[in-house]
């Protein structure tokens, strides 16, 4: 990389971080659904720009253990992603994983200093406990984690199989916690909280998870050969190798059932069958995982429920009944009803029952227990009925997800901090407005359809041989292209200066997505939930009344240009050539990466977030400051938008007219858009440089001639 370029990026990063921002953008649906409220839109955008380090910073800022989420998060964000109205949601989790791996998350050190004397005890080391410890350490409290098992991690350690969450990933996060100074006591089952208070702990966070498997409640359930899912997985995860036989049945339809079945396969069983009492549509497990399980050879029988188990000759003879779906129940799913007289028998070697778990709270904790044996808390503060005792995670919600547990841990840390500092709990005031509402059909229609790029998987045959992680990580190109699909919901254009707006209707007319509209009062409106942040109207508005909602994006081109101009003026290489280049896909995709790489001394690149945002003014400024040649390079076919180039051409034309009016060659200003016939940016750039070099030389000679003749 040329000095210009690397210098660029460094300053860029520094700049960004220290920036005060008044963000008027809306909370996009992904962020709104994420229990951690992660700024997904932001880091996805940074990935799209190839700014992985910054993406990583954003990710780390919103998630204590992003590497874990990168593997096994249930990604409710993707479910709510508005891109699914266009084609498919953004592969947010896979992008996060990419950012972590390519951004070097493992190298990142986290430090903490003790600032308070009040000690906090955390009972249970699952994600909720770990997250709480992480943030409390950040706040400066001495923290001790008490864990009944020999190793930290809760279900991450003893539940989720290794092929989905490699243990070294978990270990890195735990090491960080230790480095931060979290005291860890494994093999320590807490039986009484009083004891902890006696030991001097001023607050306790109870996060003991939900580990008690629910019983099927049928005859023969306690026969040998019948085992519950949580126990089975724990045994496997702790290194035991239970003997299962060849033909195994798993009862249930959730994550645990799926993981148990797939683990059974990896342990070498010949056949494994999941029995689920509803149909595939009602399965709580992630559909993608069900898909993968089927690929791997797991059998699933739907609408089947065991009613009796008999052990005979070392085998389990199981009576099942067929079910049909009736009226929806409280969960909204249709309730399965047994079909009379449809019983049948089947034989298995082992039966794993995975129909759910519940917390099991030691009675001596003296915390109030509610429905499903969960600990009752005030949802805003996570405090229990006991003073100084907080609870969260699966123990409070019943079996849920890692990200919910992390969010609970983070919330608990803040509330415990409030508690210890005798503050009225600082309840969430809700900052920015949340984006609600769907995209309008006319908007959807105009959005370019671009298929979702899935992260690659190991082939099914290879997967079941061992416990290696099955999902691979994106390469640069795939990641950038996937990230570029993001619609950047809620950070688009707004009319910042209504009084400047002349209601000329330019925005309404130029918007490629039919977003701006006239309200019944005759005022122009740019609805935040429809705008695609393309920036076309911003550059076209004759009153300059429209800006991007995000302060940084608003100033982006101008600041980049200033920055380049400053560095360029220091470098004194002539002739100076300035190029405005689409920053998206800069690293990931061939063309722009090429341009960047081949940029010789004297070529300065102003990265822009889509060339549609380059205004005619910017082009002139580049010349004013001394550029001999200026070009705008778009990304061509890869552009997430249609017709960007047409707008750029207009502005280039406008600026060229000025050039010729003041006696400069208009071809000093050019547009480069890669296309089939023009695929080599390096070649093009060489040509341009040569051309400008020629013009420059000619002008130098002319000057000398003038001087001579004086």
């Amino acid at each position, binding site marked *: 990389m040329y000095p210009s370029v690397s210098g660029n990026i460094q300053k860029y990063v520094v700049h960004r971080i220290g920036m005060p921002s008044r963000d008027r953008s809306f909370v996009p649906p992904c962020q709104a659904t994420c229990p951690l409220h992660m700024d997904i839109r932001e880091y996805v955008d940074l990935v799209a720009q190839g700014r992985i380090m910054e993406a990583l910073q954003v990710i780390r800022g919103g998630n204590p253990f992003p590497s874990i989420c990168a593997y096994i998060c249930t990604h409710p964000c993707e479910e709510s992603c508005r891109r699914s109205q266009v084609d498919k949601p953004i592969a947010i989790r896979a992008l996060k994983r990419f950012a972590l791996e390519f951004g070097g998350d493992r190298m990142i050190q986290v430090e903490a200093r003790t600032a308070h004397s009040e000690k906090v005890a955390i009972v249970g080391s699952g994600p909720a406990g770990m997250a709480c410890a992480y943030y409390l350490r950040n706040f400066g409290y001495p923290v001790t984690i008490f864990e009944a098992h020999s190793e930290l991690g809760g279900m991450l350690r003893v539940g989720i199989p290794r092929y989905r969450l490699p243990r070294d990933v978990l270990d890195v996060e735990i090491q960080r916690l230790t480095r931060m100074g979290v005291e860890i006591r494994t093999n320590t089952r807490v039986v009484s909280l009083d004891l902890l208070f006696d030991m001097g702990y001023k607050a306790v966070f109870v996060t003991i998870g939900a580990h008690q498997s629910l019983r099927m409640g049928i005859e023969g359930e306690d026969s040998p050969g019948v085992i519950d899912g949580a126990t089975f997985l724990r045994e496997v995860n702790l290194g035991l190798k239970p003997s299962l036989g060849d033909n195994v049945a798993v009862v249930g339809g959730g994550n645990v059932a799926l993981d148990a079945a797939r683990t059974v396969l990896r342990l070498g069983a010949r056949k494994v069958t999941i029995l689920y009492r509803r149909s595939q549509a009602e399965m709580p497990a992630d559909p993608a995982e069900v898909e993968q399980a089927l690929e791997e050879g797991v059998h699933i029988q739907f609408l089947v429920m065991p009613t009796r188990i008999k052990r005979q000759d070392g085998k389990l003879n199981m009576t099942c009944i067929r079910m049909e779906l009736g009226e929806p129940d409280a969960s909204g799913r249709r309730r399965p009803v047994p079909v009379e007289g449809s019983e049948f028998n089947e034989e298995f070697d082992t039966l794993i029952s995975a129909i759910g778990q519940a917390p099991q709270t030691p009675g001596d904790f003296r915390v109030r227990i509610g429905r499903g044996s969960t600990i009752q808390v005030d949802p805003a503060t996570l405090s229990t009925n006991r003073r100084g005792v907080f609870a969260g995670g699966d123990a409070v919600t019943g079996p849920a997800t890692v990200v919910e547990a992390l969010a609970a841990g983070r919330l608990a840390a803040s509330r415990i901090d409030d508690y210890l500092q005798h503050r009225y709990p600082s309840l969430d005031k809700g900052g920015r407005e949340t984006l609600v509402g769907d995209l309008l059909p006319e908007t959807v229609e105009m959005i370019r359809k671009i298929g979702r790029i899935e992260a690659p998987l190991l082939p099914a045959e290879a997967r079941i041989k061992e416990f290696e992680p099955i999902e691979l990580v994106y390469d640069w190109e795939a990641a950038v292209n996937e990230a570029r699909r993001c619609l950047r919901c809620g950070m688009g254009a707004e009319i910042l200066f209504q009084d400047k707006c002349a209601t000329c209707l330019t925005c309404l007319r130029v918007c490629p997505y039919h977003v701006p509209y006239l309200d019944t009062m005759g005022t122009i409106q740019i609805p935040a939930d429809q705008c695609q942040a393309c920036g076309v109207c911003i550059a076209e508005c004759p009153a300059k009344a429209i800006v991007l909602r995000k302060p940084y994006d608003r100033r982006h081109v101008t600041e980049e240009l200033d920055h380049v101009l400053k560095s360029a003026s220091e470098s004194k290489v002539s002739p100076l050539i300035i190029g405005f280049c689409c920053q998206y896909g800069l690293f990931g995709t061939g063309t722009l990466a090429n341009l960047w790489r081949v940029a010789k001394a004297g070529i300065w690149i102003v990265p822009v977030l889509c060339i549609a945002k380059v205004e005619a*003014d910017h082009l002139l400024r580049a010349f*004013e400051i001394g550029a001999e040649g200026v070009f705008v390079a778009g990304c061509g076919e890869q552009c997430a938008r249609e017709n960007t180039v047409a707008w750029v051409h207009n502005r280039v034309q406008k600026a060229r007219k000025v050039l010729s009016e003041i006696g400069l060659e208009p071809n000093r200003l050019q547009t480069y858009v890669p296309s089939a016939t023009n695929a080599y940016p390096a070649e093009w750039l060489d040509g341009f440089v040569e051309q400008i070099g020629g013009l420059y030389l000619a002008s130098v000679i002319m000057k000398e001639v003038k001087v001579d003749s004086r």
Partner: protein
Amino acid sequence: MIVAEQKPLPEIRRMISPYERVLILGCGTCMTVCDAGGEREVSFLHNALRVAQSKGGNEAHHFLESTLKRQCEPEFLEMLVDKVGEVDVILSLGCGIGVQAIAERFPDTPVLPGVNTSFMGISSEQGVWDERCAACGDCRLEDTAGICPVTRCTKGILNGPCAGTKNGKCEANKDMDCAWVLIYKRLERLGQLEKMRRYYPMRNFRAIPRPKRLVRTPVALGEDDG
């Protein structure tokens, strides 16, 4: 809406050449809408002049930018009082009315027109404006199906098309609709062709004497309710 076009850069450079400190003054109403002198054009022109200056020009101007909501109202011009003291000339990107309003308000400061005020018209599509009204003071649209022959016929004739019309276009410009064909078609559609058969005498050019002035006579208090 008043429609104008920015003057060519060389002309603007020539006009401002005697002055050092130049205030480029935009107008936030019509000139913004017709892309001739809104804040964006002010800033673009500013940049263009600076490029001109840095690339070989001998000028050494200092520029100031500002855009008023409307240049044609004295109250808005009041906002300029401080700035005007700091400059040698005002380059107005307002229409001819704005330029003259400035001349009246600031008797000691020269003012230059940065645009050619062209006509009153509509924006037929993004970036395209068409003249629609000549402000003749004697509106004929009742008889011509709402299409103005005075403005849209190059000859402004009142009794029907000349023989030059071809394919519905005007003889003066093949891209321009013949106003009289439009009028005919619309009258026919409205079932009002008898309006076209009527004889229209020569126009009264003193309908309002030039320069025109419009005085809205206030209704005396109480007059309405008798």
